[in-house]
């Protein structure tokens, strides 16, 4: 096992990793920018080293600085958390070269999964369903019709130069194809000066459901079931839960098997997440694989009773997976509490926290790096806390979350607590009837 782990991150995830290291008896090194010198990770780590100024590019993203910190503190492993250098192929490689164990994917795995086209072809080869579509641009209408037959309706025509919702059109049956083809081409030509079109299967009422996986250095892989992350705003997850209210035993079995195929296809080592889109017919399609710990790993921990950071470290240290797949026995929900003003279009609200009172009691977990007196820096992301609840049923979990949100008092900055309170009262949310476009119509 490692003797000393350097945590190349900040905020709640840095503290999260330090906690597990302490419980494992592993020494920790916190690296920090000048903006973070009063932070809890710096306080609770065994050693702390200042690696640069507030700007991430010159501190948390500076590979030489992080490596230098590891060298002068004799750390034998680096945990990158999420974001920053966690999926950086070069960093993983430099760690290897410096004989420091990178607790994450190998450079090859990161490269393989980081490149979308590459990842898709690997997945297709492994038998993991991907969103079907044309190979590149469509030649002409007959090509479009032929491709649509293979892809199966509904399909969506998209301008290769498109963006912002323009230059795309959903087609439900072959009879409508010609009109759609002509209209989309004309629109694209007018809007972008380029009438090249390609085709994808249209995903009806897509849900973002991801499967947590783990792989060891000996080719073994398991899955730890799903997380539903469909409640998103501008592709930022706001709320996550497990099990997904949309899940069935049969679908979990199929998605779990696909995720394991994906994991084995790249000989994946460590913990990772295979993200899928699931349509209303419960057909699912590979989106991408995250080769790191996720923000929302917490809810999987709550329903499986495993510490995923601990498992991640053990896998990096060369331990073998001995158990089988894990299934949720409870229901967990996480609300991301951001320093944002939900009344002002979620505008970031940095500043000093004046009052801080956290909820507690049975089934309530808080992962946070903030405290009364903490200054939320404008240099980093606005997530200040993860509030996680676990209960026997989804209904109970929602009620518990409401209770916990009511108790949570943060003053001095605006937070998304009122948004979450409203969300927990929403009939659609309570019914579990939502997909990734939920926030388009949700009225805060």
């Amino acid at each position, binding site marked *: 096992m490692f*003797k000393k782990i350097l945590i190349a991150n900040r905020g709640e995830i840095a503290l999260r990793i330090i906690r597990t290291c302490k419980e494992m008896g592993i020494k920790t090194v916190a690296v920090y920018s*000048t903006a973070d*010198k*009063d932070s809890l990770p*710096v*306080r609770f*780590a*065994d*050693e*702390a*080293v*200042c*690696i*640069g*100024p507030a700007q991430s590019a010159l*501190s948390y993203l500076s*590979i*030489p*600085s992080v*490596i*230098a*910190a590891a*060298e*002068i*503190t*004799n750390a*034998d492993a680096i945990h990158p958390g999420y974001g920053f250098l966690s999926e950086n192929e070069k960093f993983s490689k*430099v760690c290897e070269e*410096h*004989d420091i164990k990178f607790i994450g994917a190998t450079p090859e795995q990161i490269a393989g999964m980081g490149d979308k086209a590459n990842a898709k072809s690997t997945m297709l080869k492994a038998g993991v369903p991907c969103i079907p579509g044309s190979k590149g641009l469509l030649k002409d209408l007959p090509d479009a019709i032929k491709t649509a037959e293979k892809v199966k309706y509904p399909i969506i025509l998209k301008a290769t130069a498109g963006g912002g919702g323009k230059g795309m059109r959903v087609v439900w049956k072959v009879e409508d194809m010609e009109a759609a083809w002509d209209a989309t081409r004309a629109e694209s030509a007018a809007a972008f000066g380029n009438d090249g079109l390609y085709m994808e299967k249209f995903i009806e009422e897509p849900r973002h459901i991801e499967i947590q996986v783990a792989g060891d250095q000996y080719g073994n892989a398991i899955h730890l079931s799903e997380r539903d992350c469909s409640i998103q705003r501008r592709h930022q997850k706001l709320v996550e839960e497990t099990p997904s209210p949309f899940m069935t035993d049969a679908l979990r079995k199929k998605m779990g098997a696909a995720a394991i195929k994906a994991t084995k296809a790249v000989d994946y080592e460590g913990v990772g997440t295979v993200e899928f889109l699931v349509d209303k017919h419960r057909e699912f399609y590979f989106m991408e694989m995250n080769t790191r710990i996720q923000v929302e790993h917490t809810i999987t921990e709550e329903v499986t009773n495993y510490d995923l950071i601990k498992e991640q470290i053990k896998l990096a240290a060369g331990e073998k997976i001995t158990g089988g797949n894990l299934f949720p026995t409870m229901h967990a929900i996480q609300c991301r509490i951001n320093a944002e003003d939900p009344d002002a279009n979620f505008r970031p609200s940095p500043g000093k926290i004046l009052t801080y009172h956290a909820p507690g009691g049975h089934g309530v977990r808080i992962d946070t790096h903030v*405290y*009364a*007196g*903490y*200054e939320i820096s404008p240099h980093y992301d606005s997530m200040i806390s993860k509030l996680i609840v676990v209960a026997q049923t989804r209904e109970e979990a929602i009620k518990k979350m409401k209770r916990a949100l009511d108790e949570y008092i943060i003053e001095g900055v605006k937070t998304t607590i009122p948004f979450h309170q409203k969300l927990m009262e929403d009939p659609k949310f309570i019914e579990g009837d939502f997909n990734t476009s939920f926030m388009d119509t949700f009225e805060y």
Partner: protein
Amino acid sequence: MNIKEIQDLIKFVAKSGVSEVEIEQKDFKIVIKSDDKKKKFQEQIVVQAAAPVAQIAAPVIATAPVVAETPVATSAAAEQEEDSKYITVKSPMIGTFYRSSTPEKPPFIVVGDTIKLGDAICIIEAMKLFNEIEAEVTGKIVKVLVDDSTPVQYDQPLFLVDPS
């Protein structure tokens, strides 16, 4: 022992944290001492970070720095107050501080030297890259605050300069 084995052994000792290993075989002897600079730095940091929470009397979850500065930097800061007319030159990066370009060469600067903008004043090494640090002030070197071959953090005071 072949060269590969020796290299591995050295690496192993370096990581192990022990300060010295001596092995004597029939016709072979090796002594490996671990890098002093690393040990020293570690001890410094450990001393600071190990202060138990319970012993801190003032409200600790406040804005006061809790680990931050090394003892060197702290004493420098204290002296700095006395010598407030001096300018503190701080490290622009984390790494290992060298006063000369190679061990055989003399230091770039010594106390009493006058430096001007752009003069090389030290080297900071990170990831085997030797970064020559240039003066951003003009004046006379009053004090060198860090020993040669010592690790330094970002923003750690290196020199005191009298600009007058």
